[in-house]
């Protein structure tokens, strides 16, 4: 497996993890009113968005590379 496929796989897992933890933090904030949770959620959701955008750019740069 090349870095191309492994990086996209890890990126996908990172997006899922960031979104899951970010949403859970927002739900905790809405339930308990803990502002710290909101402060944790915002950078994680922003990071998830950045990973998606980066993955698209990375894929375009490595279109010629083999998947394996």
């Amino acid at each position: 497996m090349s870095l191309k496929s492994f990086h996209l796989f890890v990126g996908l897992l990172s997006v899922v993890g960031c979104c899951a933890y970010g949403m859970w933090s927002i739900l905790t904030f809405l339930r308990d009113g803990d502002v710290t949770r909101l402060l944790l959620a915002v950078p994680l959701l922003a990071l998830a968005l950045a990973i998606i955008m980066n993955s698209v750019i990375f894929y375009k740069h490595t279109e010629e590379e083999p998947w394996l």
Partner: protein
Amino acid sequence: MSMPYTNEVRPDTGLYNAKLGMWLFLAAEAMFFGALFSSYAFLRTAAESWPVGSEILPVGVGVVISIAMILAGLFIARGWSDLAKPDRGRHATWMWATIIAGIIAILGIVVDHRIEVGQGMIAATNTFYACWYLITGALRAHVVVAVAYTLYLGLPGSDMRRNDPVRYRNRVECLGLFWQFLVLTWLATFACFYVF
């Protein structure tokens, strides 16, 4: 006589020597961390009570480490992809960004440990802390090695970039695979200790 498949791909495996070696190494690493995580799962399920990590560990520091680790994996991949460009793009910038993100992750783990030690929570306190110190300590050692090798490729290894660019790109790809593995391991660590 030069060694075959140093740069070119071997037709039957589809890999060059360094990538085959790196995957064998990662397989060994997966078994090492797999043993640690399965021991953790066994101890946790056998325990009568288990603390909730999100209530006793500094989750903010854990989130900072997660962001730094994910960014390090992202930067090294971009550094590798930029090497395919005729002018090598911003390869050197991505490599230094990887090093900085890695150092932030290492410092984050050190701060995390110091906070807990400062509160009198050491590995001997309970099984939770024993597992947490062991797994985060092992991961920190791995990140130190990854940062050191990234530094090596960025400084003395830059000669190889000029003299043998194909071999250099292969080395960066292998390093990138190792970084991706560390990101995966950290995500598992974060989920096990800081969330549940």
